[in-house]
């Protein structure tokens, strides 16, 4: 079971997303995360899917994605050097000593405190999934009120790009 990050361009049509999501559930493929948004070309959306599977399953996933009529292009980012980022917002119970502690922790992780109340901080954080995991770990279960993560999006390094 290896982890793969797959990037695809699909027609910006209603229903296109459910075709992809439906494919994964119907064929029993794993989805760790899925993100989607329009691109600079309004007729296209770009989706990033993080999945896990054996080599055979991953090969089928790519083939099945390519087979969907709304899918214009598919690439497996994990095949080459690439950059992966996820955004998280973490609401922390920040009272007493922990107010200072959480501020320091946020700085160490190069996050930003984007909302402050008497008793809470909301921290915005971008990075790899591991970095966000590490932050959550460090913040400790007791302090965390709420976590929201976007799931990963990715792009290949250098000249290689996913375009039509």
């Amino acid at each position, binding site marked *: 079971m290896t982890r793969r990050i797959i990037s695809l361009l*699909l*027609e910006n049509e*209603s*229903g296109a997303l*459910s*075709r992809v999501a*439906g494919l994964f559930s*119907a064929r029993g493929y794993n989805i760790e995360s899925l993100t989607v948004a329009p691109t600079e070309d309004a007729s296209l959306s770009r989706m990033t899917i993080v999945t896990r599977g054996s080599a*055979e399953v991953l*090969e*089928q996933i790519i*083939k*099945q994605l*390519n*087979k969907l*009529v*709304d*899918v*214009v292009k598919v690439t497996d980012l994990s095949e080459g050097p690439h950059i992966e980022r996820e955004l998280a917002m973490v609401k922390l119970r920040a009272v007493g000593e922990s107010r200072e502690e959480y501020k320091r922790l946020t700085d160490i992780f190069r996050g930003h405190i984007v909302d402050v109340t008497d008793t809470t901080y909301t921290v915005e954080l971008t990075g790899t999934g591991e970095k966000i995991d590490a932050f959550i770990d460090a913040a400790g279960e007791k302090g965390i009120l709420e976590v929201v993560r976007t799931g990963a999006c990715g792009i290949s390094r250098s000249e290689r790009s996913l375009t*039509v």
Partner: protein
Amino acid sequence: MKLSGAQIVVQFLKDQGVDYVFGYPGGAVLHIYDALFGQEDIKHVLVRHEQGAVHAADGYARSTGKCGVALVTSGPGATNAVTGIATAYMDSIPMVVITGQVATAYIGSDAFQEVDAVGITRPCVKHNFLVKNLKDLPGTLRKAFHIATTGRPGPVVVDIPKDITDPTIKIDYTYPTDVSMRSYNPVVKGHWGQIKKALELILDAKRPMLYTGGGVVLSNSSAELTEFTRALGYPITQTLMGLGTYPATDKQFVGMLGMHGTYEANMAMHECDVLIAIGARFDDRVTGKLSSFCPAAKIVHIDIDPSSISKNVRVDIPIVGDVREVLREMLQMLKAESRRPDAGALQLWWQQIAEWRGRNCLAFDRKSQLIKPQAVIETLYKVTRGEAFVTSDVGQHQMWAAQYYKFDQPRRWINSGGLGTMGFGLPAAIGVQLANPDATVACVTGEGSIQMCIQELSTAMQYRTPVKIINLNNRYLGMVRQWQEFFYEGRYSMSYVDALPDFVKLAEAYGHVGMRVEKPADLEAAMTEAFALKDRVVFVDIITDQTENVYPMIAAGKGHHEMHLAPERELA
């Protein structure tokens, strides 16, 4: 030309060359039915159940290679069509199904007869569309036909809300001749280098085997396959879906393979050293246990759908492309090539195959007092001189039809392989007959299956489609009974069909001819009489041996070499 959406649907179908539409009206498609009224270019066939409409369109498509077309209303019309759509999907049949939808303003409001047809059908179509703007209608219909008929074919659903077909709103219409889709461009031509490599491997073979399937039917490459197979002199086996693309009466044909394939075909699969898979998808009914599938073979696979390749079985030389294109290229290479197959090795291989053939795995008791189902199919073959279109339902009768009717031509054997849909046979036969008005059409069925779409007897009367129904009546859901006998120690749970109708009277009630045959001695005469009634539907109810099983059989999860033969043929 200014047309309403409803008129555009009809005009588009004419421009697309559609001659038959199979359907059933209802609120959401009434505008379209009104546009159909009084014109004669499109012949609409009114079925008795939407499942029947889709199966009839499917039979039409399978027997002609053209795109089948069905038209149904929203809600229950669409849901009734789903079994038919899934059937076509599993066997890659080109088809466009137009479903009515509630008006756009009502979508999502649980309106009367609203279902999310696009959502429900999504997993069993090649693609589907919801038409949201009238101006998109012609282009969408054009894309639907394009997608359904190219690449690996399949059903496409076009869901049209009622307001889109409003007769008072008209727009300019011209048939969109061009269709281009950046996201859909199936590969047709095979990779030259791969074809070359494959041919080398094929010529190196000592124990070669051709394994060919529905892709040969779908690509209309029966002639190329026959030429290629004869040029090589190799044994050929076919899947249930491939039958007829190579003449079954030819000596190089070793019969169907798989769960109910012949002994020689399955043994040759097990022992071959080079397997040439053409337009076949390594289905579990064919491969049996994957870990003991063709243990000694290097595998070449020609298929237009990359996702069929190395899905279940890893192949050594994949060739993505249309069977016909690839075989033509390979034949040219073969002609230019000085090397020929290894005659010595081939002779030994054929000797081995002859030995397996000697087991005579399809022999059956010809002296029985009861009518043997196998004898029925042999008689059918004889009476129709092997030239009939044979549709079938699902069960034992289907397997016997496949084993004992020797199809020498493609598109003559019409059955639901992938989904295994009981109820397919009769409506499909109606579609076949309409597409081939002068042909002999037989529907081989069982007393279980026929009752799943029996209402289409009424359609057959309305459209005078003189199909012959050959009902192998064993008073059992025979295929289920067989599994219960083998794997559940004879606990025949719910496989005995009690309270059967009198099929003769039933046929007569629909205005057809009914016949019952109970003795082996009467079989041929009855069948001859039935087929002589050229312009009538004849329901031949044949009371067969209830306990007969389909042999050979590979139990699910077993290998090709672990076949069961009929008890009397099993070696001690």
